[in-house]
């Protein structure tokens, strides 16, 4: 208990990781100065932005972990809700601590700086993105509120990127009666997150539920009306037909020789309801690299995210190469390579025994756990043992959970569990018969059982896994035989 505490801690970023860090420091008896900076204001949760909040089932207040008084009561200074972004950090001259510079010119000093800056959208947002109708990320309340306002029966929404966030947004948009097109470079999407078998099933759900699914890369988004269109778009006048949606879609289908499902009329039959221009001109045109294109009222970019590691990079701390996905390199407790600099949550990246960056795993629980572990270490306490990792995603009414490392492995096998309602779980069993990962559908106990089986590391009974008659609890705790 008497381990020395830092005199002052500055937490940069108020997502789940930043919030958990300040909360945990307090719970662990921290008595020093504690400041959290986030231009977005009070610490806020993110997953509901593509789920409950987008659906209109959750308010902005409910996204906040705590109200202002909670922080005041604990003497935690929260700076934010405007331009108070941290523009840079550097070790103070005497190396006794850090200086941080806010965009508004303010300077903060602290013994310890914890980076909890999360992620930024991956890839350059292409031309046309200046339009009000193109939502370039789904990351803030503002983004989600814009998308929510756009969603109405008949709204033609094109979602670029079929990963976790894009897929969730697509299913919520359908609920509003929107005409949704989802474009992803690969079919299925998100194999890395789910493994091929589960990814296939999840991607196929989109079309089953009425999303038009396209495979390809978006080259640009054009605005036939020209409003706010980026300059370069003018270089391709032939691709800017001020055209009816119908013709464009027919062209899209024919040009690509797509299998049934593409250009199958989901969009063809829709009259334009947005904009009120009084004619069937789509305000946007989504153009793929292969030349196919179609009209849309709105477009959402959900093309993934990369760690926002520039503060550490600029300060000279070790970070993973950008080609490798980036991220502030940290030890198991979150210590970066410079003294008194820490990183937690999505911006941080652990390393293996050889110091090579571990695969990125930007999910909610991991962010929270990393902050808990860092808080423990900052207080001279021991972190908790962590078992198999977990994340969830909600799409088309299904609660999907992923534990451990799903996917197919050499020498291993994939075990499926289905019941009368359909697939319940896809299990990845390693060469030694041990469970490596699982994806479950609407079966919380199955996910939790799988997590415990993975942690045990012992060979599993594949027959029992596949048998829906064997309850999740019995998978973990075999029934007593008498």
């Amino acid at each position: 208990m008497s381990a020395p505490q830092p005199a002052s801690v500055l937490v940069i970023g108020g997502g789940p990781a930043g919030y958990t860090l300040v909360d945990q420091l307090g719970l662990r008896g921290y008595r020093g100065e504690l400041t959290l900076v986030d231009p977005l204001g009070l610490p806020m949760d993110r997953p509901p932005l593509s789920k409950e909040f987008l659906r209109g089932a959750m308010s902005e207040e409910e996204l906040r972990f705590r109200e202002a008084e909670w922080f005041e009561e604990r003497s935690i200074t929260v700076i934010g809700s405007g331009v108070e972004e941290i523009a840079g950090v550097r070790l103070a001259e005497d190396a006794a601590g850090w200086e941080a510079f806010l965009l508004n010119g303010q300077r903060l000093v602290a013994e310890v700086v914890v980076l909890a800056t999360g992620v930024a959208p991956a890839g350059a947002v292409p031309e046309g993105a200046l339009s009000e109708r193109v939502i370039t990320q789904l990351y803030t309340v503002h983004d989600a509120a814009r998308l929510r306002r756009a969603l109405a029966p008949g709204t033609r929404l094109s979602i670029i990127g079929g990963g976790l966030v894009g897929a969730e947004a697509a299913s919520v948009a359908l609920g509003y009666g929107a005409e949704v097109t989802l474009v992803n470079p690969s079919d299925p999407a998100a194999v890395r997150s789910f493994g091929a078998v589960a990814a296939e099933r999840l991607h196929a759900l989109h079309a089953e539920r009425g999303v038009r699914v396209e495979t390809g890369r978006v080259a640009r988004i054009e605005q036939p009306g020209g409003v706010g269109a980026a300059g370069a778009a003018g270089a391709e006048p032939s691709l800017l037909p001020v055209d009816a949606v119908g013709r464009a879609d027919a062209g899209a289908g024919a040009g690509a020789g797509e299998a049934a499902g593409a250009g199958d009329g989901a969009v063809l039959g829709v009259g334009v309801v947005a904009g009120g221009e009084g004619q069937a001109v789509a305000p946007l045109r989504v153009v793929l690299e292969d030349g196919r294109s179609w009209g849309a009222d709105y477009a959402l970019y959900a093309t993934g995210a990369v760690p926002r590691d520039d503060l550490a990079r600029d300060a000279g701390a070790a970070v993973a190469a950008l080609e490798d996905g980036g991220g502030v390199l940290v030890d198991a407790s979150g210590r970066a390579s410079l003294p008194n600099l820490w990183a937690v949550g999505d911006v941080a990246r652990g390393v293996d025994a050889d110091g090579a960056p571990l695969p990125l795993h930007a999910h909610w629980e991991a962010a929270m756990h990393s902050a808990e572990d860092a808080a423990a270490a900052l207080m001279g306490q021991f972190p908790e043992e962590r078992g198999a990792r977990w994340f969830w995603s909600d799409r088309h009414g299904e609660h999907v959970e992923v534990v451990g490392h799903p996917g197919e492995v050499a020498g291993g096998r994939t075990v499926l569990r289905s019941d009368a309602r359909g697939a319940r779980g896809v299990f990845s069993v390693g060469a030694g018969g041990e469970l490596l990962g699982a994806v479950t559908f609407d079966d919380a106990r199955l996910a939790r059982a799988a997590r415990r089986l993975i942690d045990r590391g012992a060979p599993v009974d594949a027959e029992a896994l596949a048998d829906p008659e064997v309850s999740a609890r019995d998978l973990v705790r075999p029934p007593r035989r008498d």
Partner: protein
Amino acid sequence: MAQIVDVAGVGEIPEGEAVVVDGSANETGRDIAVFHAETGEFFALDDECTHETASLADGWIEGDRVECPLHATEFCLRTGKVLCLPATESARTHKVEVVDGRVLLHPGESVEGADRP
């Protein structure tokens, strides 16, 4: 004193399982989950998670904790204390006793040491 609800016989709720006493069948008006912990003890909490809409009775019961089936917040079955995010509010407890092999629930009567009395 609230009206006591005779929930079930001890043997009718397997260890690691829970049953829900409907809001219409108890004076609090809220659904109450009655848990049979692996320790053999019985506990009761408001069934709805304090985070969003999920039934804690469907959660994973281990030791004296229950993990929410939706986003995995854990609650202490003894005190209702919330143990991790995303929920930040503890669950309301209700006293349970076992008398003559029957599980008796005291709706609205929080247990001693409850985190949210």
